[in-house]
């Protein structure tokens, strides 16, 4: 039977707390070659020289954290809460409420919650990416993460975050709370690569708060099998002229149950949201692609686009776009198309000399590609490089 919604409702107390005693390392070079290879696949530059900062968490232990740029702060959340007394008061559990659901409630209860704090300083533009990785090892346990990301006024940063788990790990839960604050005229590009294992349950809860002229660009990629994911970040575009772009690339394999989407609440004037999803479902996978754009502010604009390709009769793609307008001066649209791979396209590539298999793989790879035309060239190049590595490995 294909997956149902109820499967996503878990009791977090069934999972033990993750190991918080793993040793800290001084350099990523201390990691085993296998581990380095796994981290590379989720976008981490293991050499770390070209990054603006690195954070690596394994289960419930911070293994490595390093700041390499004067433009950004990168530190474990507990250290940041100690350093900045305003952080707990003004930002923690603010844009994501504690009582949202059983996962947030559970995460709020965990005393020694881990996670990263990343903050780009006002007026500073950091071109090199800040990289983070959340890695799971312990079967039967849960990884509880609380991240707070702040881009101060007029700053820009680019975060690449990879999530991975040890091969063959038994059932485990990842609870990730992420709170993003994008201040006036600031910009965050956030690229997340998920490379979980078949036993992992993933329940991120993310929210983004945007002030005037702020921009948030989110690239999300999942190409490897997972047990179940439920993720639906919400962006509050409070400030005038703020904008969000969510690009999502999903390849559903085996029995993966992937329920992903994004929401944008366009409250400010001239705000805009764009959501682009490419989903391929194969084997017995289920993909639910959600999108919600609420247009409240004058001249708010939104577009939601979902294209799905279904490659197996046991697979399922369910596209659920929602548009909600409460103002005569808004313009929000959506388009969705789900279908099989076009024979005509395969034949066309064969007529140019590709075999049927080569043609199919070209079409799938092409289908799962992001449009980077809006990103700054260096960020686009870096993001494409990471995606290429992930694609090659899967």
């Amino acid at each position: 039977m294909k997956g149902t919604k109820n499967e996503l409702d878990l009791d977090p107390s069934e999972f033990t707390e993750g190991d918080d005693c793993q040793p800290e390392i001084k350099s990523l070079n201390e990691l085993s070659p296998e581990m380095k290879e796994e981290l590379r696949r989720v976008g981490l530059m293991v050499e770390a020289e070209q990054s603006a900062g690195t954070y690596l968490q394994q289960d419930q232990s911070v293994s490595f954290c390093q700041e390499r740029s004067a433009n950004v702060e990168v530190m474990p959340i507990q250290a940041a809460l100690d350093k900045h007394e305003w952080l707990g008061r003004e930002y923690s559990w603010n844009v994501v409420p504690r009582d949202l659901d059983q996962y947030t409630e559970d995460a709020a209860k965990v005393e020694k919650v881990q996670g990263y704090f990343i903050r780009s300083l006002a007026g500073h533009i950091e071109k090199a990416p800040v990289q983070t990785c959340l890695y799971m090892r312990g079967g039967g346990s849960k990884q509880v993460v609380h991240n707070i990301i702040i881009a101060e006024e007029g700053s820009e940063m680019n975060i690449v975050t990879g999530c991975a788990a040890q091969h063959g790990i038994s059932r485990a839960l990842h609870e990730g709370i992420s709170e993003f604050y994008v201040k006036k005229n600031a910009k965050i590009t956030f690229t997340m690569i998920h490379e979980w294992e078949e036993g992992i349950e993933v329940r991120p809860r993310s929210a983004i708060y945007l002030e005037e002229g702020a921009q948030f660009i989110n690239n999300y990629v999942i190409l490897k099998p997972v047990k179940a994911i439920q993720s639906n970040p919400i962006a509050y575009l409070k400030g005038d002229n703020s904008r969000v772009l969510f690009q999502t690339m999903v390849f559903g394999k085996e029995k993966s149950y992937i329920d992903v989407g994004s929401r944008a609440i366009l409250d400010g004037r001239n705000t805009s949201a764009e959501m682009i999803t490419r989903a391929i479902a194969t084997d017995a996978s289920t993909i639910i692609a959600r999108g919600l754009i609420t247009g409240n502010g004058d001249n708010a604009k939104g577009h939601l686009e979902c294209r799905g390709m279904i490659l197996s009769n046991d697979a399922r793609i369910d596209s659920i776009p929602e548009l909600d307008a409460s103002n005569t001066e808004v313009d929000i649209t959506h388009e969705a198309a789900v279908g099989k791979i076009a024979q005509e396209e395969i034949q066309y590539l064969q007529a140019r000399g590709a075999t049927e298999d080569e043609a199919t793989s070209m079409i799938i790879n092409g289908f799962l590609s992001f449009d980077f035309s809006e990103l700054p060239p260096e960020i686009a190049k870096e993001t494409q490089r990471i995606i290429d590595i992930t694609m090659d490995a899967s």
Partner: protein
Amino acid sequence: MIPEAIEATKLKEKQTMLHIENLTVSVGNGGSRKAILKDLNLHISEGEVHVLFGPNGSGKSTLVSAILGLPGYNVERGTIKFKGQDITGMSIDERVNMGIGVVFQYPPAIRGIKLNDIANLALKRKSHEVATETRSLASRLNVDQFLQRDVNLGFSGGEKKRSEVMQIMLQDPDFLLLDEPDSGVDVENVQLLGNELSEFLQREEIPNKRRKAGLIITHLGFMLNYIDTDRAHVMCEGNLLCSGKPKEILDAILENGFDKCVKTCLVNTQEQEVEQS
């Protein structure tokens, strides 16, 4: 011997490119199976370019599809031989690798695959400098600005045809199928494409130096102002009812329409049969 006869002798020495014998092709399956090509014969030698006229629905594109081996076109009877080898059961790419190329009438748009990706595909089995050749061809055909765009997505009629011709010239087939190369293309583009294709098909060479062969399908005939062809055929209801010199056949069609042309042809053919028997 008169010059034409000398030329004819020389042509006979040339290798057979395409040889179609008693070909019957159907589409659809089960009860809805319908024969589109009926007992068709066609012979094209190395160095020859033929043109195929015919009204809409006469089976011209089906013939292209059958030669290319597109699935869904069932060969019921007869054979298609290419360079002496029976290709009837081969896949599309096997035929292409033997030297068949096609300029499609309606090439599909493919999201995420750039024109440049296809250019590289067409060139992948070759040794020469890929990027340089692509660039110079793209510039000649005025498609430079499309190399990094998704192939055929949002291309105009002329842009699609120019992109098709660029791809095929990189692929460099020995036998070229051109399916309605002049439909949906403005006069300027017909001229550009016609001149490029004429050069590609070595029409500027003296006949016995020509090696490339081709079959041009058209119901408008505009392309023929730029590409000199050797022989024309008129297709009607799945068969070639009339063959002859391109100019004469085209004039007859333009003057009298397909119906009359075919009727005249039928009369001629019957007369020939009477003479022969």
